[in-house]
């Protein structure tokens, strides 16, 4: 009977076509076009392309010779490591701890998730003030503890760390919420029978919680790694144009810079293609690592 209502397929056109048109025009077509653009000569955003590059893969060779691109790639890989350890790792610790308390779990959930809803641009300005050389929050705090000289948090020796810290900090709550949901799905009986067998708290975490959470953790790591490739707002506000001395380029910020500041549009298309390829490779690798550990 249920099938009868939906036997008439005519409304299907009305239901599906608008969404598909949107996605085709603004997602699938540009995606393919972008790959083609990366092999063509385009001298500015508004200009028509002037035919194919010679050789057609010129941009992809250039990428390996470009010193800033190497920095951007290196920084992005570091960023991935930071997101895995700093976001998912910290989130696991916090989630397991919250699972062990009776009161206040909801409060912590609300508070930890909070930075995610705030625009990264606003957070960037906020962290600019926090790490301000001429007496921002951190330098004032250090002074209160008796440090006499000011630290320049944005100089070349601190920049990378200071750029990644807020990015890491912002998304811990996101993985925390996903992991807590996963933890709530673990049956209480397992812990009870482990208690009867005399398992300690740590043993319960190590032999029950973590193995049963493997799939959820895997999802989180994939999201963290692909998320690291998409970071743009915070670094661009805090360290525009790879400041200082091109030390803080990421693939995303460098792509934007190549589009607007050097007007090398086909080159930045090629960088965008590289970002996609990196995303596919890293999520495959993460899935593989977690799957092989499955026994």
């Amino acid at each position, binding site marked *: 009977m*249920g099938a*009868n*209502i939906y036997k008439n397929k005519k*409304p*299907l056109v009305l*239901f*599906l076509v*608008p969404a598909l048109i*949107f*996605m085709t*025009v*603004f*997602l*699938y*077509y*540009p*995606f393919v076009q*972008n790959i083609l653009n990366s092999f063509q000569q385009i001298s500015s*955003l*508004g200009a028509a392309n002037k035919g194919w590059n010679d050789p057609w893969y010129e941009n992809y060779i250039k990428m390996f010779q470009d010193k800033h691109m190497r920095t951007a790639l290196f920084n992005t890989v570091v960023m991935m490591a930071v997101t895995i350890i700093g976001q998912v790792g*910290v989130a696991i*610790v*916090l989630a397991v701890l*919250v699972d*062990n*308390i009776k009161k206040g779990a909801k409060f912590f*959930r*609300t*508070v*930890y*998730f909070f930075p995610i*809803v*705030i*625009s990264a*641009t*606003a957070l960037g*300005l*906020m962290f600019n*003030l*926090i790490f*301000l050389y001429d007496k921002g*929050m951190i330098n*004032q*705090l250090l002074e209160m503890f008796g440090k006499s000289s000011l630290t320049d948090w944005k100089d070349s020796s601190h920049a990378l760390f200071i750029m990644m810290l807020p990015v890491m900090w912002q998304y*811990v709550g996101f993985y925390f*919420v*996903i992991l807590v*949901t996963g933890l709530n799905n673990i049956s209480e009986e397992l812990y009870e029978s482990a208690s009867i067998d005399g398992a300690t*708290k740590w043993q319960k975490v190590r032999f029950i919680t973590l193995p049963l959470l493997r799939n*959820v953790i895997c*999802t989180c790591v994939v999201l963290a790694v*692909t998320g690291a490739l998409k970071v*743009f*707002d915070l670094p*661009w*506000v805090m360290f*525009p144009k790879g400041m200082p001395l091109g030390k803080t380029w990421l693939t995303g910020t460098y792509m934007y810079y190549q589009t607007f500041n050097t007007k090398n549009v086909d080159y930045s298309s090629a960088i*965008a293609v590289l*970002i*996609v390829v990196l995303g596919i490779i890293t999520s495959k690798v993460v899935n593989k690592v977690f799957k092989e550990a499955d026994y």
Partner: protein
Amino acid sequence: MKKTKFSGCTVLIYIILSFWALTTIYPIVWIIQNSFKAKDQILADSFSLPLGDVFTLSNYKTAFERLDIFSAYRNSIVISTTVAAVVILLAGFAAFALVRYYFKGKGALQSLIIAGMMFPVFSTIIPVFRMLNSWGMVNTENLWLSLLSVALPQIAGNLSFAIVVLSGYIKSLPIELEEAAYLEGCNAVQIFFKVIMPLAKPSFATVAIFSFLWSYNDLFTQMFLLRLPEQRAITRLLNELTSMEGTNYGLMAAAVALVVIPVIVVYIILQKHIIKGMTAGAVKG
């Protein structure tokens, strides 16, 4: 003996959890309290509350005088409301069709939609810009066209996620109610608006809130497509602030507070939906 050890452990847990909570709340409190202080007071002692002589509204006055905050808000709200409204309507349609109808190529279509979630904005933005530019929608004096040019790619970027979340929810609805409506003479479109939408209200709300916030906070698309200063939306305005007024720390704190406070209020009221919305797509995918 055992009991004291247990409570000691619990206290330690609460200390660690509270420490992280402090790192997420205090910076915002700090920026808001400093938005009520003059620059020299911020640099002298940023930790004290702005009481007595220290308290000043001058940063906010400057913010409203020098920055076109109200038009930026208006631009942001126009863009983000359009995105949220179009996304729930089109994604709702598509999700309904994908769950209830059987047709050739349905599986392929579903994979294509899920694949759409993987495209980072970097990989589509240049062709999108060139296309919109050729349609005369970028760098145009016409404000509404410019705002629409930001909304269009953002809609497309949110559809995949929205379809996945809404499909999951519509699948769990009992088909009997739709059958009853059908017997009373409703056609498929009426069934969608009169049965599906009211029943799936929570998940539509979730998707709407997520799309709105995502669009409100997205700087990258605005950087590409809103080129004229008077057309800036709120995040774009904030981004320009560093170069315009980079050393006016009080003003910067006030601007951050002005952008963040509405979001905090909305978050406190709707937090359940927001948290669900922003993690739903992730867990499903």
